[in-house]
């Protein structure tokens, strides 16, 4: 399966090592996707990596990906300038179940939705939050966006966080390490749960971030009374094909490119997150 050639039409440096690329296909229409899915992005001549789509289906305009510079390919992608070419294959994988065209799930039946993001974990959640905030205006439900970052410079999507706040979502941000200018909260993202004020008996949650953060956040939600089957997490393993052929993205019973990345925090997932080196 060959990539569709896209051109970078805009780039934003979100943080020191995180860049958002806005891509338009050289030929044909924009790829359709559902929030939570990922594409395989090719930096031609360097290689290909799995990057979540961070756009929202209801947003007009180019295809949006936010990339953290952590290796050879992601570095090359972050270096791409306006006008440069990027290959796109996809979209692949499961979604956040936030809209009728998504897979059936618990989100559409509850009053409150808690979205918990660690660092760049907000990127795959961005489209879902857009959908949830828009939907909350129709249903009267509430959306809570809880963001944790290592330090203030690592918080991404300031414009979106402010917009969601204006549109009625409860947006709380905390950092592991403050700076002299930081006037916000310092602490783990799980500490935000107590202040959020959601109704656990009618709450669903979407979580994406480092595994340890997802484990503790999911546990805290379950302890507060949220039904584990209403918690979705986005899991990550090495992905090299996106097609279920290469075997790298195995995690227990899952091939995450096919069965994930978004999966319910049910029995098997909570066990996997608690076992070492899975």
């Amino acid at each position, binding site marked *: 399966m060959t990539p569709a050639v896209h051109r970078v039409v805009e780039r934003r440096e979100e943080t020191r090592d995180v860049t958002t690329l806005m891509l338009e296909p050289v030929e044909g229409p924009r790829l359709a996707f559902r929030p939570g899915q990922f594409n395989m992005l090719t930096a031609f*001549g360097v290689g290909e990596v799995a990057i979540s789509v961070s756009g929202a289906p209801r947003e007009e305009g180019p295809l949006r990906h936010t990339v*953290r510079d*952590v*290796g050879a390919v992601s570095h090359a992608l972050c270096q791409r300038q306006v006008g440069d070419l990027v290959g796109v294959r996809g979209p692949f994988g499961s979604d956040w179940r936030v809209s009728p065209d998504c897979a059936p799930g618990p989100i559409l039946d509850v009053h409150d939705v808690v979205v918990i993001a660690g660092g760049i974990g907000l990127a795959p959640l961005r489209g879902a939050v857009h959908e949830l905030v828009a939907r909350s205006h129709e249903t009267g439900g509430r959306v809570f966006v809880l963001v944790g970052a290592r330090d203030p410079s690592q918080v991404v999507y300031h414009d979106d966080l402010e917009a969601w706040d204006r549109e009625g979502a409860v947006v709380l941000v905390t950092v592991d390490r403050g700076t002299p200018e930081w006037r916000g909260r310092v602490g783990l993202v799980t500490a935000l749960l107590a202040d959020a004020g959601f109704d656990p008996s009618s709450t669903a949650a979407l979580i994406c971030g480092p595994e340890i953060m997802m484990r503790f956040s999911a546990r805290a939600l379950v302890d507060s009374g949220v039904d584990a089957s209403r918690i979705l997490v986005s899991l990550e393993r*090495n992905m090299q094909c996106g097609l279920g052929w290469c075997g790298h993205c195995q995690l227990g*019973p899952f091939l995450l490119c096919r069965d994930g990345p978004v999966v319910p925090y049910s029995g098997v997932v909570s066990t996997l997150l608690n076992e070492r*080196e899975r």
Partner: protein
Amino acid sequence: MSTTTPPPSEVSLRRGDVVRLWPEGLDGLIGVLRDMGYDVKGPTVRDGAIVPGRLDGAHDLPVGWRDEQSPGRYAVHWANDELAFSWAVGPGSWKAEFFPAAQVQWHAERHGDTYRFNESVESLRPLAIVGARPCELAALDVLDRVLRDGALPDPRYVARRDGAFVVVVECARPASTCFCSSMGAGPGIEGGFDLALTELSDADGHRYLVRIGSERGALAIARVDHEQGLDVDRAARVIQLDASVVGMTRQLETDGLAELLVRNQENPRWLDVAERCLSCANCTLVCPTCFCSDVHDTTDVTGAVTRNRTWSSCFDLDHSFLHGGPVRASSSSRYRQWMTHKLSTWWDQFDTSGCVGCGRCITWCPVGIDITDEAKAIGRSDRALAVGRSR
């Protein structure tokens, strides 16, 4: 002269029929398959092992050769007799014919200010395998589920696999490392072939019982000198297969095995096997069902890009690399991943076991780690832990 009426033998054979073939007929069959346009391959003796190779005739088969296998040991020796199939599987599996160890996926050249792609799907002569073992057909069935039968089939695999002609030969002489009878993958076979041969040698002579499994199998046999199948051959086959099963001393208890491994991910036995395991990846490279691959791009001075796929192994540190480092850094976690996937989570992913009991991973492990022993050890430990928990 009329060309519309085939000779009587060509209309008389059907799928499901049984015939007798003398050894010369095997040579004839190879010739007929070549005439039918197939690239004919089969077991050959090369570099001290029985491995897949090209067949020009029956003389290329391992006639008169035997193998000896045990954990960490393999050897062939010359027995100087007429038997062509009196050995068990060697290090090479038919996987490599359908899923080569290195393959180009696509090539892209700069074209103006964009790229022009060429998806690489070779057009090859269809393959005929003469002398695959039942466990190897079972392994291809497993690979089919991964690379062909999913939502997104691999076009390169499909191009090689579809149209391949398979002559399977049942096993009369399992190796000490074989345990296909535990996995339901041998030593006999009842379907999934074009032709199934059973090599017989007794007072009635050296001959083959041939069962026809497809219409094209019937067409091929019709063009070879053959005789009607005899009950004496059918009876000899049953006796031979029974002896093969009895001779297969290694076993794997599969009842409850998938659940056993899933609930023992933190079992201390994984640390024990890691003390012996070299993480050399031999087991995954000889395995006929291991399908993991790496994808990597290369470029040239013109800016052209080639995407390559090569076999990889879950024993490689890089296999689980995620930004920052490998997820499975320890040998114990990698052996656990391999064995749990093979015998347990493969069911979740592909609705089959990933193991066919060919025993290659036991023979070709340089330190002789035995997957059946490791499964037994986990089972013993699980029972001991259960006793501990109940107190």
